[in-house]
């Protein structure tokens, strides 16, 4: 796909070559950041990017704004709708059409699913979805793939175990979908029965790719053969019954004892924030890549922004 002028709304909109192109650009940018970051500072210096976070975010917003700053573009926007015209009852369409008069691109997070696609359709300027309700968060998936590629050297021939809340966690939904585009992928879904990966998604991935999928509630066997263990937080707000939450949140904990069972080069990933599901004891292990994973969000988002503006990179 031609990236210039496009929007990045959903991982479904990206083909395997698209994903590889973005990751290749991220690698170039990462190398430039460590070699000569000033070269990148003039790339988008004439651009203004609106960062519209209709609901709070730490990592995604700051990572995007860092990416924008590192490309020399200017950032405008808001975090939370307090003090904006949204609070006065303005429609999303009107807010978006107004901001499109000021900015060359919109990065947004919104609690309603499909909101980013709608804004892209009404404004006609590139929109990057930073999360729309429980639906999509494509840049998280791209940075997850980049982390895997960096650590494993390939996106094919891997066994990936996803652990925790697989029902509500949009990151695991999108990542599982994206991984199904690659060859010889073995996915193991470990979750309590209450938090299993939605059946429609499992069916869709199976139908589309013939990928090997195993669903289990036992973590021990799964981790033995995994190249990657992708852990997700069990979200308190999903449970009306606090007792149920407390029972489930400690079902799976990645700690030193469990790490003694995994292969030496197995990596532990997490979209963060974590609560109890990864013990802080293992943070210092080389296997624990989750903070670096969050850091890789910057070159990946820079890659996307530069591609959507149609810029080439020379280095």
């Amino acid at each position, binding site marked *: 796909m031609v990236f210039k002028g496009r929007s990045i709304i*959903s991982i*479904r909109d990206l083909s395997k070559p698209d994903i590889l192109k973005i990751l290749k650009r991220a690698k170039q940018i990462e190398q430039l950041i460590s070699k000569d970051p000033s070269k990148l500072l003039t790339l988008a210096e004439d651009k203004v990017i609106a960062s519209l976070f209709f609901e709070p975010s730490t990592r995604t917003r700051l990572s995007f704004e860092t990416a924008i700053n590192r490309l020399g573009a200017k950032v405008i926007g808001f975090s939370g709708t307090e003090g904006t015209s949204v609070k006065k009852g303005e*429609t*999303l*369409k009107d807010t978006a059409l107004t901001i499109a008069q000021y900015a060359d691109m919109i990065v947004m997070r*919104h*609690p*309603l*699913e*499909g*909101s980013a*696609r*709608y804004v892209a359709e009404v404004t006609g300027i590139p929109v990057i979805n930073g999360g*729309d*309700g*429980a*639906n*999509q968060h494509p840049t998280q998936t791209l940075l997850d793939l980049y982390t895997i590629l960096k650590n494993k050297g390939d996106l094919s021939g891997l066994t990936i175990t996803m652990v925790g809340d697989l029902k509500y966690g949009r990151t695991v939904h999108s990542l599982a979908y994206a991984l199904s585009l690659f060859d010889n992928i073995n996915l193991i879904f470990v979750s309590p029965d209450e938090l299993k990966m939605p059946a*429609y998604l499992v069916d*869709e991935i199976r139908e589309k790719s013939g990928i090997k999928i195993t669903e289990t509630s036992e973590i021990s066997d799964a981790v033995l053969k995994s190249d990657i263990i992708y852990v997700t937080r069990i979200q308190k707000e999903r449970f009306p019954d606090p007792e149920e939450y407390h029972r489930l949140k400690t079902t799976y904990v990645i700690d030193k004892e469990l790490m003694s069972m995994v292969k030496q080069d197995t990596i532990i990933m997490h979209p963060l924030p974590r609560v109890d599901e990864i013990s802080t004891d293992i943070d210092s292990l080389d296997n624990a890549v989750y903070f670096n994973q969050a850091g890789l969000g910057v070159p990946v988002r820079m890659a996307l922004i530069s591609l959507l503006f149609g810029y080439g990179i020379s280095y």
Partner: protein
Amino acid sequence: MVTKEKQELVITKLKDGTVIDHIPQGRSLDVLKALSILKKTKNTIALIMCVDSKKIGKKDLLKLNNFELGHISLGKIAVIAPGSTIAIVKDYRVISKCQAAIPDVLISSLRCINSNCISNAKEDITSRFKVVSKEPLKVRCHYCERTFTGDGIVVDV
């Protein structure tokens, strides 16, 4: 319009309008509701239910006087009453006939049941669903990307 003759129901011929035939038994009221015809027309409507059919056993039938269907309505009929046939009548003659087929994309025909979908917000949005599978019908909302089957597929009325 309906007269009794020789113990049979006879429906007079339609001069101009649309005939929706082979509606699965019991679905004609849903079709009428989905098309909002009663709100739109003061013309005569003939609704015949539970008619013997060689093709499908029992069927319903609608004759809509001076009424033309748009493509949105065709999509709705295809979802509610798959297999129905639609004939356009002008001056007592059928000038075109087609089967209500599910298109690849349903625009303005369905309503997303996900209350957190932007298409249900107070915005100026036309609903749009991609048909993932026609048999059994499975659709995906263009906005929230959720997939729906069976009772999850709701026609917009």
